[in-house]
């Protein structure tokens, strides 16, 4: 049983630094992960694929909000982000185009985020 899939996901995302799947993306997204009374915030900025992740409450082009339980499942590849948005489990405000870019970052069922990163490298010519 994993301890904190959400934290692991963002740690791993930060370690990628450059993500070819986002090479055309410049913008920022904030993930508000709600655990009871507390809201954890991750702030992700992307500059042509260069990724920086920090904790905090910065303004963002797109804000995704979900419960910790839901986000853990998305981060672990157990819940598809688009389906989660369609059913209101993940709310998104701001630029919806960022959603389609961001969904590329999450592992597919049975995949680890690590594999995703390794696999995506092949897309960079």
């Amino acid at each position, binding site marked *: 049983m994993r301890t904190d899939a959400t934290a692991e996901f963002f740690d791993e995302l930060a370690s990628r630094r450059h993500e*070819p*799947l986002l*090479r*055309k993306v410049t913008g920022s997204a904030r993930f508000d992960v709600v655990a009871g009374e507390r809201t954890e915030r991750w702030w992700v900025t992307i500059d042509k694929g260069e990724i920086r992740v920090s904790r905090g409450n910065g303004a963002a082009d797109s804000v995704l*909000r*979900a*419960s910790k339980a839901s986000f853990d499942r998305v981060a672990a590849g157990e819940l*598809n982000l*688009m*389906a989660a*948005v*369609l*059913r*209101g*489990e*993940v*709310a*998104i*405000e701001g630029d*919806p*185009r960022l*959603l*389609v*870019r961001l969904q*590329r970052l999450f*592992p*597919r*069922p*049975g*995949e680890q985020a690590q594999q*995703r990163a390794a*696999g*995506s490298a*092949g*897309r*960079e*010519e």
Partner: protein
Amino acid sequence: MSDGLVRILDGNTFVVSDARGDIEASPTDPTGLFSFDTRFLSRWVLTVNGERLNPLSVDDLQYFETRFFLVPGTGTVYVDAKLSVIRQRTVGNGFQEELTILNHLDEPVELSVRVDTGCDFADLFEVKDALEKKGKYSERVEGDKLVLAYDRETFGRSTAISASTPAQIDKHGLTFKIRIGPHDKWSTRLDVVTERLGVGQARDAIDDPNRSQVRMRANLQHWIDEAPRLECDWEPLKATYRRSLVDLAALRFSPPIAGGHSLPAAGLPWFMTMFGRDSILTSLQALPFTPELAATTLRALGDWQGVGLDDFRDEDPGRILHEMRYGELTAFEERPHSPYYGSADATPLYVVLLDEYERWTGDRALVRELEAEARAALNWIDEYADLQGTGYIWYKRRNEQTGLENQCWKDSWDSISFRDGRLPGFPRATCELQGYAYDAKLRGARLARLVWEDTTLAGRLEQEAADLKRRFNRDFWVEDRQYYALALDPDGNQVDALASNNGHLLWSGIVEKSKANAVARHLLGPRLFSGWGVRTLAEGQGRYNPIGYHVGTVWPFDNSFIAWGLRRYGFKEDAAVIAAGILDAAQFFDGRLPEAFGGYERPQTMYPVQYPTACSPQAWSTGAPLLLLRTMLGLEPYEEHLVVEPALPIAIGHLELLDIPGRWGRIDAFGRGRVEVDRS
């Protein structure tokens, strides 16, 4: 409309009602207000003093706007018109209905006007398959609004109904107690607004900005003005052309991710969504007329290109999506359409469209922008689609519950068969997929040389294409019957039915010159050609059925690509014969070609018999007359020029297509009908 239903739409929001403007949907019937694959209104019934109304006429003002003229009372021999009722309905974010009642008497009237409402919030998939709902319904009156809602866990959809004049609102509708003076009128505006709410009441990502009617009108006019103008001696062709342009405008769909640009959705009523195959093929058909559709299609499909392996969605890295859906079943992952990737042709066709787009428009910036997507698509062909390791595209679904068995355009269960009717096992390698792969490699090579400056890739792709062509002509050619097999079965045996797919092979260029004439003679021969068009499956094959969905009907879109293929190999008279047949058929449908019609011999029925549940309008049928025009005029970009080499049926007479957009700016094409066509 042949079924008596009236349809208006805007993007993926549409209303289907009866000729009175009323909606009384049963669970399995596609009437109602639909948006993002959900029904937001299943009951909308107007009565005056408790009486239903009687339709006098319906005016389709625009594809997004209709006017119903009604009088009270039903079924009497004469209409006692003391009152007239006019409902003018416009689709936007939901719909608006301007309700007007005219009093024709010399005295005032007191009326009770009632609109009954209700909603089942069915997912389109449920309407197709009649499934049970799992959530809870509620109705509530909030001030001057009636709100109908459906909730299942975090999933919420609601419909808000309000009026511009005072009404008594209850949970099942609105009542207006009104008095109209002699020869006076009363009117109100009813607003029906759809809401899709996510966590914390934030509007979710699938929201579509409300498009104003004025903008929609201006937009349609602009769309028609921008397209080439057609002048022609044969009036029906002008009507068909105009119908195609308007329907194509109606079928445009702006996915929330496309930044306000639009691409063709597949068809009404079931398929108002982004489809890889349909959006690509329609964009190809429309390239000489509205090239911007192709640009949006390429960008939007590129954004959603597969990046990982997901068995439920049949997703692979580089794969282009098959279908996107927004309804409840997709939201709860009871269906895989978020999006679903189970299509074996959309990925090579993506590269084909990118190249053809560049040839017409010269827009190399887009080719550069989508370089990684195109490379990933080319990589998918060899890396993920060759399930048998034999150098062909094969398909076999990994989602065995809700995935698609046949991942080619003929996607019904019995579409791929042997001549004797047996069905092959999986995986299957249908022939046209190999043609598309061949074409994608050659076109990818051209783009690699021209834009990406990667001669190594270009050389490799050309080598692979040549090798594929050689193997294909050996493995798929049915020597004793002189046509290409429909598919290979898992053991590499030829699935030897004679089918229209041979025409797509001509289009792709994979056919060896020495075999082309035999293929053309089959396509125009009595077993495949009905007189209206080429049948999906030849008469005499085990599963042939003139009204079988993919096993005998004639598909206008299929024929438009077959005609293009015939032209490519120099059979321009044969291409004209097919164009004449399909365009003749269009006249029987007021210029709006259905998805498919019966494969009966033309002299047998004298008119084309519409396939029972065919979609209409349907994007690639709408695109068929456009591609046929291109084919008949012999329009072909050659470097910075447009080559025009007409081969028109005599009946068309003189034809001009003016202001064809492209890398040359705008250019005119002229032709005169000279090809004899037997039209009996």
